[in-house]
């Protein structure tokens, strides 16, 4: 067989199911591929045990397992296709609205508006802080709770967390080491927080961040 294709016999040989001679050109190519794989394998090192410590640190920061509401954990599950998230969030919003206690006649029908406002988009926050021991995100979307969204440190000292946020404008700050509040230096808008500090601003549109 010509070109880049291995013959069926060569494929069986590479699968370990043929123990015989191949035509010379096939044998050379097959052996080269096996040597490359072996050499590549020997050059790789799995991440060391410090990774275990970083994971367990994040686990402890999360406190009691399952602290996040079920619907929140469900929304973050990676197997959910992104296209379904806004639809599912809208459906959940409608169900929650229908479940609200009613007094007298049902309220005016803002269902579509509720569904529209409930579109949810995954946003990844990043903060370069190699010297920090902990980092969280506090903002208008989580009641400015400095403990609700712990970030995870990667090997280069960048802290990240991915959050499902509703479409709209949100203000936030990073909280470093549990006490130091700081705006996001990479945010495209900053506003006075009214306490002498600065809040960062993001605008989330249906397709992601809206640059203003």
């Amino acid at each position, binding site marked *: 067989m010509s070109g880049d294709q291995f013959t069926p016999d060569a494929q069986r040989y590479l699968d370990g199911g043929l123990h015989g001679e191949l035509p010379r050109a096939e044998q050379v190519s097959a052996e080269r591929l096996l040597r490359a794989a072996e050499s590549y394998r020997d050059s790789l090192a799995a991440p060391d045990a410090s990774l*275990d410590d970083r994971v367990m640190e994040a686990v402890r920061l999360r406190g009691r397992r399952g602290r996040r509401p079920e619907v929140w954990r469900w929304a973050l599950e990676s197997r959910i296709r992104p296209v379904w998230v806004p639809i599912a969030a809208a459906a959940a919003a409608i169900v929650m609205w229908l479940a609200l206690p009613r007094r007298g006649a049902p309220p005016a029908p803002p269902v579509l508006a509720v569904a529209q406002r409930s579109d949810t988009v995954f946003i990844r926050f990043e903060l370069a802080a190699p010297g920090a021991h902990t980092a969280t995100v506090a903002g208008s979307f989580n009641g400015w709770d400095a403990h609700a969204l712990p970030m995870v440190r990667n090997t280069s000292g960048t802290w990240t967390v991915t959050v499902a946020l509703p479409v709209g404008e949100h203000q936030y700050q990073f909280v470093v080491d549990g006490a130091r509040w700081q705006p996001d230096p990479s945010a495209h808008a900053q506003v006075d927080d009214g306490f002498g500090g600065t809040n960062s601003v993001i605008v989330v549109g249906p397709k992601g961040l809206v640059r203003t």
Partner: protein
Amino acid sequence: MGPVPESINRGTEATDGDVVRAVLAGDRERYRVLVERYRRAFGRYAVAVLGDADVAADALQEAFIRAYDALGDCREPDRFRNWFFSILSNQCRSALSRRRSQGDPADLDVPGKERADADAERSELAAALEGALAQLTAEQREAFVLKHVDGRSYEEMADLVGVGVDALKMRVHRAREALRGMLEGLR
């Protein structure tokens, strides 16, 4: 030394199911057992698929945390290994997409001279294979790495990935054909 399946040398250690149930019952420190076990089992897979040790460490870390957050959804605790692998596999594909959207994965994050020095310490074939793997589809790359870098059987791969043996063989065969041309001329 060749690849060592993670099922070896487990001795009388707790099974995955035992550990998952303990964590769900509130003993969160036991989660470290699973982290250590599957960092060792899948660490090299992540590095090989992503072509960068730091990016692989981040992907593994994120996968372990996602698995912890969703542990209550692990319907078969005794098959945590397979469930976790699916999370890691998704995480690696996301990381790969991010890297590809930012530029050529082979050139990311590593200054030219530093990369040249690192490559000089490895065989020419290993460096060429790493670059060639980056050109494969995510499915072909995963299948080739599991077969030829991790050294797993097709039956084991099928159990892990949740895809039939014939489909996996096809992916590996296609990967080899693509790699054959890219490695041609090397000794």
